[in-house]
């Protein structure tokens, strides 16, 4: 093979066409081996990453006898939705036996006002920080950002005292307040950075036209900031839905959010463990943030990136 330095044209006795571009077989084999390795590695990684989801779904569709016999990775021989029904409507936590549905509706009742309130407060706040600076505003903002690094454990008890004083301890509204406070650093940062990236002329023109603090915000800035509101919503809904620590501290068993109730159902030591019901309950709890993640796609990633952006 070494002496075949000819192009096909030369081999056929024709003069070489020097400008005809690359000739000969494409150097395929080397690239393919590398590609195979890359796809192989990514395939293995995906397998590990998908495994828990697979196990969760499969276990939740099996009956207990089949689970005791066998292989947790195998698909069900006989598909049953009974575990889902039981997890949703009958599973017991302590005295209540009305299933995870209670926690689900509690979580909805917590997430909706928390998300609305925290975004309303933080967006106005970010706007004030960019366009209506006052003496000390940057100082408070810096404290707010550094506050995000303080471990929650340092502040949880004094907040219990405060909530008791104002009569909100154990209620959903107390928890809403806590989520609004602890969501403030990141959401304020998000809006501040976004509003700062808008041209200042916009703000000035609106002022010249006689618009005031709220007029500029509501009629000029909000309509053009819808994507960032969506990012903030995704961030807050998933974050608050997934919270466990604040839920377990600031609410009572009757108002426990879904994550707390789920943990109580699965990790309760009484009775026979029903793994299929447990996995159905786990899956149901994960379904809300998971659907938000799958539907929102790029915006979710943008929310994460916003969390990664430094002030």
């Amino acid at each position, binding site marked *: 093979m070494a002496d075949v330095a000819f192009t096909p044209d030369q081999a056929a006795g024709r003069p070489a066409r020097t400008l005809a571009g690359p000739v000969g077989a494409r150097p395929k084999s080397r690239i393919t081996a590398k590609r195979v390795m890359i796809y192989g590695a990514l395939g293995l*990684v*995906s397998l590990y*990453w998908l495994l*828990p*989801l697979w*196990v*969760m779904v499969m276990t939740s569709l099996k009956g207990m006898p089949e*689970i*005791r016999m066998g*292989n*947790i990775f195998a698909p069900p021989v006989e598909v049953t939705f009974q575990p889902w029904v039981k997890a949703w409507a009958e599973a017991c936590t302590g005295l209540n036996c009305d299933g995870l549905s209670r926690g689900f509706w509690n979580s909805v009742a917590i997430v909706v006002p928390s998300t609305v309130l925290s975004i309303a*407060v933080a967006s106005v*706040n970010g706007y*004030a920080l960019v366009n*209506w*600076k*006052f*003496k000390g*505003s940057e100082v*408070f*903002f810096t*404290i*707010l950002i550094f*506050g995000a*690094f*303080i*471990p*929650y*454990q*340092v*502040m*949880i*008890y*004094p*907040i219990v005292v*405060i909530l008791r004083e104002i009569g909100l301890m154990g209620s959903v509204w107390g928890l809403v307040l806590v989520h609004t406070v602890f969501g*403030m650093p990141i959401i304020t940062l998000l809006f501040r950075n976004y509003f700062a990236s808008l041209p200042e002329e916009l703000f000035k023109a609106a002022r010249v036209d006689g618009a005031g*603090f709220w007029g500029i915000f509501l009629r000029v800035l909000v309509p053009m900031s819808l994507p960032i509101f969506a990012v903030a919503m995704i961030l807050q809904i998933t974050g608050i839905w997934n919270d*466990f620590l604040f839920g377990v*501290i600031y609410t009572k068993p009757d108002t426990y959010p879904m*994550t707390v109730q*789920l*943990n109580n159902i*699965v*990790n309760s030591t009484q009775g026979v463990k029903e*793994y299929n019901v*447990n*996995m159905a309950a*786990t899956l149901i*709890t*994960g379904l809300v*943030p*998971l659907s938000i*993640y*799958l539907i929102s796609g790029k915006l*979710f*990633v943008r929310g*994460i*990136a916003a969390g*990664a952006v430094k002030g």
Partner: protein
Amino acid sequence: MSTRRPSSLLRNPMAKLAAVPMVVTATVVFIGCSLWTVVYSFTDSKLLPRANFDGFAQYDRLWSSSRWIASVENLAIYGILTLLLSLTLGFVFAALLDQKIRGENVFRSIILYPYALSFIVTGLVWQWILNPDLGIQGMVRAAGWESFAFDPLNSPGLVMVALLMAGLWQGTGLVTVIMLAGLRGVDEDIWKASRVDGIPAWKTYLLVVVPILRPVFVTSVVLIGAGIVKLYDLVVALTGGGPGNASEVPAKYVYDYMFANQNLGQGFAASTMMLLAVLVIVIPWAVLEFGGKRRG
């Protein structure tokens, strides 16, 4: 800026009203509540906070508690391994995804989806997969390898492996996405130059790309670090701190002493130690990152 707008308390009252929640959060919650806890960590509060000062007694008790020492050690092991592994894995995954592959979005979605889940969900799934009788161990044994043993949830020496498996499953996607965004910002010419010089790709990554991505690494370290300090939900759901004290962590110590053992003083002292640890890490980082940047 500020000279143009001479500020008085009455100027722009709406802007100040809008900033009230931020001011209250910053001063009352972040500063006020933290100081309150630090002050009360020097008292002998039990069921209720009492201003009966007791010097460093709570701290003496804390550091002679075997459970607290185990908690700190566990968190240190978990923290160091999580940091190393998620940076390494995140970078490798990002580099793999950056090879102009087909279906990049699918792979990225698969690696990132656990990040959307609650730590409780993550902990419970892995608890089930690692179940000694019906999970991986039971399955391998049923397949014929009778002596196979992998039961991290019931072996004190291995339980941190279980936490790492679950924690990395949940958190590596975030690092991957951040690293991938960083890699996309690397100048294409660097790759051309290194190919012309015949430098192998791994060497280019290690010696050229990693140093360029320093800010991305710093961001990742901060995010991973913040997650490590918070480690609580995952432990509650996956191991409950056991077996024995083998997977206890400081955040759980604080919660248990404040809300279950009715020993507030211990909880305050432990949480003050957590605050101190964070300050020791955050202050030098803040000085390095922001200290030099404030030119004007």
